[in-house]
């Protein structure tokens, strides 16, 4: 081995693919600025993302003990800046596919000519950050990648140009800045406590022995969880979520709901894995994770119950589901981390399908209330069928078996570890959550409206199809997403097998 760092491009491919994509899009835009209305960039970016996802999935079938490594330093003992086990690889594949789905929706949202390349470049850049943070094990890369995953999204939200989008972009920007400040502080505290610039179990275990360093470490974890909590939409750091979902383009909202959450969890797993690996009995850390989990579960589901705008409902559902993602982590063990990854992947797939269905229905045009969806299952089965399945998966009810399986998985670790408050909150959240999703489901299934909804009146006046801004790529996301949900419902092992 030379004295330089090792570099394996194939291992780095999940992050290199979107990074190269950014270059490709920007160069292409420089060469032919007005070519094809600037819309060529989106398909190119989508292809790049799918290739990256395939390359990432390659790592999903390895063993957790033998991760793919690259960027390894020669000294002192071969620490690698890029470590991707099967869990990380699956998350990366999920991030890349979610980003591709977001692109598909943005494509059908018909960006203005100049925006095509900009949108694609921003989205690819954010995805690069999200993928990189999943594999980062050192503090520096971790913070930088996490920021790279966040900042372009602010621009994406604001890019829509409406007043609402500007407000949403502003609130997201402020949130991101606070989050960045917290993350930097947290990383600094971590470094102070452990004296180590990586998230490693050994140094955590040593630091835990010393009461004073332990206090600093707990503080570091608290601050880090708060910083990541902004991105994961955990209560009390959730306030930007409904605003951003309703203000941004549907595709951007999908990116925020799916890809951003995946990368946020991937980031959170790094410090949690350090604790889990050390096998510590750390009630303080459990509390730091459990408090936002319980708060998100309860507040998210209860507020979602009162929402009448599908996008706002999805936003609050995201907040509740973020709580679910945290539930298994409170056990601080390997099973909990796997359950958490399984949960977030299923959530992301279901949410992507729900957003794609909204895209097909045309959430932007007219019917922005649940009542506008009445009887949709009869009017537009191709949109309502997948949406219904996605809602059942999110609620955890068969035939969305995979949703139930990940809920079982998620509740297992805290039950085994005896974290009863979280379990109790989980029970409540399941029940209220079922009420939330079935409320929407009932409307989809419902009979014809007593009086036509405003959006529908316009639709019937213009003839069928005009109210829908459906496109082929949205439909492709719908069909593929539904296939994934249906297949994993029949054979949940397909999903869980890729998590080590």
């Amino acid at each position: 081995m030379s004295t330089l760092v090792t570099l394996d491009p194939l291992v780095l491919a999940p992050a290199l693919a979107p990074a190269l994509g950014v270059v490709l899009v920007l160069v292409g835009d420089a060469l032919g600025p007005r070519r094809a209305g600037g819309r060529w960039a989106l398909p190119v970016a989508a292809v790049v993302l799918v290739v990256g996802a395939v390359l990432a999935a390659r790592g999903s079938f390895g063993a957790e003990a033998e991760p793919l490594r690259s960027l390894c330093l020669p000294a002192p003992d071969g620490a690698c800046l890029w470590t991707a086990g099967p869990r990380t690889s699956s998350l990366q594949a999920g991030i890349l596919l979610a980003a591709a789905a977001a692109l598909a929706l943005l494509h059908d949202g018909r960006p203005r000519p100049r925006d095509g390349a900009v949108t694609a470049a921003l989205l690819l850049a954010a995805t690069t950050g999200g993928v990189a943070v999943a594999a980062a094990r050192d503090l520096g890369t971790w913070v930088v990648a996490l920021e790279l995953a966040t900042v372009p999204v602010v621009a994406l939200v604001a890019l829509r140009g409406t007043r609402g989008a500007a407000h949403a972009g502003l609130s997201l920007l402020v949130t991101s800045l606070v989050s960045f400040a917290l993350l930097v502080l947290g990383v600094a505290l971590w470094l102070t406590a452990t004296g180590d610039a990586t998230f490693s179990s050994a140094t955590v275990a040593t630091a835990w022995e010393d009461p004073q360093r332990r206090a600093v470490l707990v503080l570091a974890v608290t601050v880090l969880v708060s910083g990541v909590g902004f991105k994961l939409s955990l209560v009390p750091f959730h306030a930007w979520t409904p605003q951003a979902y309703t203000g941004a383009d549907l595709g951007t909202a999908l990116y925020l709901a799916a890809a951003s959450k995946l990368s946020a969890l991937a980031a959170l797993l790094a410090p949690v894995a350090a604790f889990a690996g050390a096998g510590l009995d750390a009630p303080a850390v459990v509390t730091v994770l459990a408090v936002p989990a319980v708060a998100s579960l309860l507040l998210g589901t209860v507020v979602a119950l009162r929402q009448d705008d599908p996008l706002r409902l999805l936003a609050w559902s995201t907040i509740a589901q973020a709580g679910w993602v945290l539930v298994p982590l409170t056990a601080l063990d390997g099973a909990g981390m796997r359950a958490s990854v399984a949960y977030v992947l299923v959530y992301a797939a279901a949410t992507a399908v729900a957003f794609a269905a909204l895209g097909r229905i045309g959430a932007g045009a007219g019917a922005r209330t649940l009542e506008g969806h009445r009887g949709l299952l009869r009017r537009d089965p191709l949109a309502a069928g997948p949406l219904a399945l996605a809602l059942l998966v999110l609620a955890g009810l068969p035939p969305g078996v995979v949703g139930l399986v990940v809920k079982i998985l998620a509740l297992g670790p805290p039950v085994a570890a005896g974290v009863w408050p979280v379990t109790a909150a989980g029970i409540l959240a399941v029940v209220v959550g079922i009420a939330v999703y079935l409320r929407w489901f009932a409307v989809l299934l419902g009979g014809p409206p007593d009086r036509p909804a405003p959006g529908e009146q316009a639709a019937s006046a213009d003839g069928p199809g005009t109210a829908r801004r459906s496109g082929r790529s949205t439909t492709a996301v719908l069909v593929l997403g539904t296939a994934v949900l249906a297949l994993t419902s029949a054979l949940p092992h397909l999903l869980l097998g890729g998590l080590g």
Partner: protein
Amino acid sequence: MVVSLLLALPLAVGLWLLTGGRALPAGLARRVTAGTAGLTLVLAGATVALGASVDRAWLPELGVRWSFGVDGISAPLVLLTGGIGLLVALHAWVELPAGGSPATFLGCLLVVEAGALATFTARDAVLFLVAFEVVLVPMWVLVGRFGDAHDLRARTDAAQRFVLYTAVGSTTLLVGILLLVTSAGTADLRRLADAAGAGLGSGTQLAVALLLVLGLAVKVPVFPLHTWLPPAHTTAPTAGSVLLAAVLLKMGTYGLVRLPVSVVPDGFARMAPALAVAGAVGIVWGGLVCLVERDLKRLVAYSSVAHMGFVVLALASGSDTGLQAALYANIAHGVISALLFVVVGGLKQRWGSVDLAVRRPALRETSPRLGFVLLLGLAAGLGLPGLAGFWGELLAVYSAWAPAGDRPRAVFVVCAVVAAVGAALAAAYALRVAGLVWAGDRPDPEAPRTPDTTGVERWVLGVLAAGVMVLGVLPMLLLSTTADAVARIGGAR
């Protein structure tokens, strides 16, 4: 193979009717459903006769296997489910409720049947839970979509109450199962039953038993967790009511036998007195409500609460006789309540409502066949000797009178006395209904005659009536089937 087919056939056809075949005309959908239900019944018979089973890896991460099979406890329930499934499919010729496409209605019936069959055959605790949840959404659709449309708000409320109560129950059950599986290290129900709680601390046993019983008690339903049942029954279409009473409630009692009673007997023993008291109170409470209830459908629902009280009391007694009584009363109630709901549903269809305060001509004069079957159902429900209800109630009261050695006898004797009083109440309300509806104590000469039962409805009622009589005359038919399995649970304890 046979078991897989038994589960896959109704599920696949049901899901197809719900998605691809939604636009199927009523006639074709009915024939497809009846054919599927008939084949399912044949497959259920074959499964029981061959003792077929399947065991594959499904979720190795959770240690959950795709393991289905039948034994003495589940065999009668599988046959009951198959039979009731066919009857409700045939009943679609009598009543096809409005509210959506016929294929959706029939598809929901088939999915409920598949879920119930999976619940009764699952040999893995986690799989049991998944199967338990399968029935939730289709049943919710049946109540909320195809239910009585007179009062839409009440319909939505009933459907929501059903789902949310059941969800609370099944999530509590889930936590109990997870605690059990993580502390015992296996999810295989047979291995768990063989161990019978060995290796679990007494605190863990109690916690597991508490969670499992609480979760399942909602489904049974045990007083005071029964308040979802009457509205659901009142609202549901006839076929839905029949499935709910004859099949879904049985999932709760079956779960009690399979999980807490077999798996954590010591923990269950410690909370048995409380359960027995809840059962006895349920018997009396149900009986008292039935004495004053005006809506006939709701009355039958409350009588279900009372009958399930007998089952729970027998289970709590802890003796082999008690277990036998519970399993017997379970099946008997399935047949009797199915019969009563078909009759009452038919009356509701004819009269528009089944308010007992409305004066109507005597059923025995206008429609003697319907009247006879109603009388038979009521007689069986009050526990008349020679009919299905008798043996279950008798054995239940007996087993409470002489409970297992580790149970506090005084509590159980009091419960037995209370249960006997409850049985007397059953006689009182059965006679009240018979007087009002059958004999026509307050006839209204102006009212139109009630058309008697004909065609398919007659056959459905005939089969159920025959079942009630056969179970009453030949109880050994059923008791001998369950005897071995009961002895095994008793032996493991």
